[in-house]
């Protein structure tokens, strides 16, 4: 969601960094542009004003550190300021209370409360092993309670049986009672929204709060919200009292202004962000990383974590082991392709890579989408077990059959086989080296990869003086400067337009992916 803002900011700041000295007029000009960029990103006006005032104060007569240009200092100041506004720490949901811990969700209609309830329940249930009960207190919207029940079945979390004619407060009491009797750890209360901040909704929410005395009261808010975000957050905080905020639809192309605004106005932490329609698309909110993303620095840690969480560790170990031995067949390749899809596909992965914001138009032009992954999986699926194990036996007639079966062209199959052979050779070559499991895995995925190259790290370091200590350290198992991912993509951004153009021999990356270099 932050791309648009980061596009703007990095443009402004790029111009600044090239200057040798910074005059008062420079700072003013930069401040004006930053102000406009923030306003266009829907950051609330008051918040923008404070932001700019502080920026000016700090930037004029800036304590210029040796070997750093004033422009770089301004970048640093904007970065720090962003983190400060977003809140410096990550605050997870707090379950430190006697069970069942009541958690209440409030928010406007259409902000995504019910979906968020299911996402949180799923996370509590699966990742934190808390027995969770969900209850919908929405007696207004047609079918709202059924919606939660359906979602509950999808994520394998129990919902409170529906009893018609009860008031929200009665349902809340019944839910807490059921939570106690059923030995639940957490009771999630999904309240009714309204289209507007009206009195009835606030009263209802306050009553439910009084009845259930929730340990967490989370405001679910749409990250696309405009200038109204401040009023929304302030009103809920004053009337109901919030403990945190959940931002939804962070996967849209909104510019994230609401995140800055709401945090600044209420002082309440943003605890979680919803990043997609699927029920596992819920992530912790990391202010520092988001600030990096706003600045167009990519989000490396998120990438690594996501990889670690999504990839079936055991499966990966097995693949890594096979690869070490040099046995890497098409089944292994297929597994990797599927893992990549799970991680949000190429788009999801690339959004997190440094510098991508600036070149995303070129990527769009190259028509780089997840269809490629899907098609390659389809091709492999059209092969027999024997063919998958021993790709060498695939000769003309078999290829023709596979092509017909998967709706692909023979050339595409050739390209896939070539890519596989390149990867297998690479694996064999690396086989002997001693590495941690994650390293093998990362390379296996051609993903280790997500890390910027050595030069790029150096560039990052140069660009963000002083902030490096905060920069996430790579897990020790990761190779220091692994091959870029995917293929040519991870290299210095300048080499990107050619996507898959210049071949880098021996890379296990996806540079040879059919379709990459080809304009469709």
């Amino acid at each position, binding site marked *: 969601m932050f791309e648009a803002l980061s596009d703007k900011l990095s443009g402004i700041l790029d111009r600044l960094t090239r200057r040798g000295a910074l005059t008062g007029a420079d700072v003013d000009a930069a401040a004006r542009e930053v102000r*406009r960029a923030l*306003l*266009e*990103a*829907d950051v*609330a*006006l008051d918040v923008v004003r404070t932001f700019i005032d502080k920026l000016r104060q700090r930037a004029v007569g800036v304590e210029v550190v040796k070997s750093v240009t004033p422009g770089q200092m301004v970048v640093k100041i904007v970065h720090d300021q962003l983190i400060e506004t977003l809140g410096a720490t990550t605050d997870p949901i707090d379950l430190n209370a006697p069970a069942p811990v009541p958690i209440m969700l409030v928010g*406007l*209609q*259409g*902000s*995504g409360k019910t979906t968020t309830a299911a996402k949180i329940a799923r996370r509590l249930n699966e990742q934190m092993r808390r027995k969770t009960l969900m209850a919908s207190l929405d007696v*207004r*919207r*047609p*079918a*709202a309670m*059924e*919606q*939660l029940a*359906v*979602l509950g079945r*999808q994520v394998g979390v129990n919902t409170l049986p529906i009893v018609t004619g009860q008031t929200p407060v009665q349902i809340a009491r019944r839910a807490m009672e059921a939570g106690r009797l059923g030995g639940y750890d957490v009771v999630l209360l999904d309240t009714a929204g*309204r*289209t*507007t*901040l*009206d009195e009835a909704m606030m009263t209802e929410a306050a009553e439910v709060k009084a009845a259930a005395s929730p340990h967490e009261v989370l405001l679910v808010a*749409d990250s*696309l*919200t*405009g*200038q*109204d*975000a401040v*009023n*929304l957050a302030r009103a809920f905080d004053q009337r109901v009292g919030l403990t945190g905020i959940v931002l939804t*639809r962070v*996967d*849209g*192309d*909104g*510019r994230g*202004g*609401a995140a800055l605004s709401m945090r600044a106005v209420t002082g309440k932490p943003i605890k979680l962000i919803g990043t997609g*329609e699927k029920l596992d698309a819920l992530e912790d909110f990391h202010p520092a990383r988001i600030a990096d993303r706003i600045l167009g620095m990519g989000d490396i840690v998120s990438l690594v974590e996501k990889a670690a969480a999504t990839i079936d560790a055991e499966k990966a170990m097995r693949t890594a082991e096979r690869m070490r031995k040099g046995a890497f067949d098409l089944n292994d390749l297929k597994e990797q392709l599927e893992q990549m899809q799970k991680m949000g596909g190429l788009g999801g992965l690339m959004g997190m890579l440094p510098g991508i914001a600036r070149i995303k138009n070129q990527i769009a032009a190259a028509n780089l*989408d*997840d269809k490629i992954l899907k098609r390659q999986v389809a091709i492999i699926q059209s092969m027999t077990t024997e063919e998958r194990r021993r790709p060498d036996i695939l000769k003309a007639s078999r290829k023709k059959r596979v092509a017909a079966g998967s709706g692909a062209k023979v050339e595409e199959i050739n390209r896939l086989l070539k890519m596989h052979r390149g990867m297998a050779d690479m694996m064999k070559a690396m086989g002997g080296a001693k590495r941690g499991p994650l390293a093998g895995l990362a390379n296996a995925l051609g993903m280790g990869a997500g890390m910027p190259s050595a030069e790029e790290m150096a560039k990052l370091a140069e660009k963000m003086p002083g902030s490096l200590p905060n920069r996430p350290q790579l897990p020790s198992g990761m190779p220091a400067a692994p091959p870029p991912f995917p293929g040519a993509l991870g290299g210095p951004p300048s080499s990107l337009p050619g996507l898959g153009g210049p071949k880098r021999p021996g890379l296990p990356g996806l540079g040879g992916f059919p379709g990459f270099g080809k304009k469709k």
Partner: protein
Amino acid sequence: MNDSTTQTSGDSRQSWWRRLRGGLSRTSSAITAAITDLISKRKLDAGVVEELEELLIRADFGVDVAGRIAGAVGEGRYDKIISSEEVKAILAAEIEKILVPAARPLVIDGASRPFVILVAGVNGSGKTTTIGKLASRFSREGRQVMLAAGDTFRAAAIEQLKIWGERTGSPVIAGAQGADAAGLVFRALEAARAQAIDVLIVDTAGRLQTKAGLMGELQKIVRVMKKLDPAAPHAVLLVLDATIGQNALSQVREFLKVAGVTGLVMTKLDGTARGGILVAIATEYRLPVHFIGIGEGVDDLAPFGAREFAQALAGIER
């Protein structure tokens, strides 16, 4: 359920105005109070214009439109003493000028039967509710309406539409959750043709405009309809949530590209500091705004009038 159905007839023009005023009151009172503050016994100068601009930004007008309107208010009036009433009037006139081309009603062409209306938008913008309200409006006008539950993704969306179908006495064509939306729409269109339905309203799943795959699915729905009736869909309504800020512009752009949006419906235009985004959209896109929703009642979806909206936004009494 809780939908107020108290005022139904056409003589509720006045009450609609009152509700519109009420709905936009927070925006307009913020604007008017600030204008009064701004203007009282001051000459109009660059400072005033700048503050006016910020005021408009706060109401989601966007940086460009706010600048332009504020500039227009200031033009030729510098160093004059000017009353807050005058400023409001100028403001309303400027906004109206922008909105007039957008205020075009949705015309149901009786010649095409069924007249197919495709309703699209991002998640939670109020598509299904809007469809319910449209269905009730059309049935009141004596048209036979059919609803197609094309939102096969969201849990309980089908049930929600069925409830609206019952309320308005319209048949609902629905499939199973997770079924192919395009196939269902095809079936619905077949059924509507067979049963001599006047208006077929097609619900779709909410989708963010950035999701290429889902936008492709929407394109498919349109394509499939054309197999039965090359003129369908006769209207493609994009439902926009007024709480959304400048992102609404991006939504309009993408949906226009993919589904050929013919008109807009703006929902949730009540209660809080917003409404300016409509002006921003009208500036950038020449799309008609067919309806605006200012409340949750069935009758709170009404045709859009440029002058009354501009005046309500600027806080002018009438």
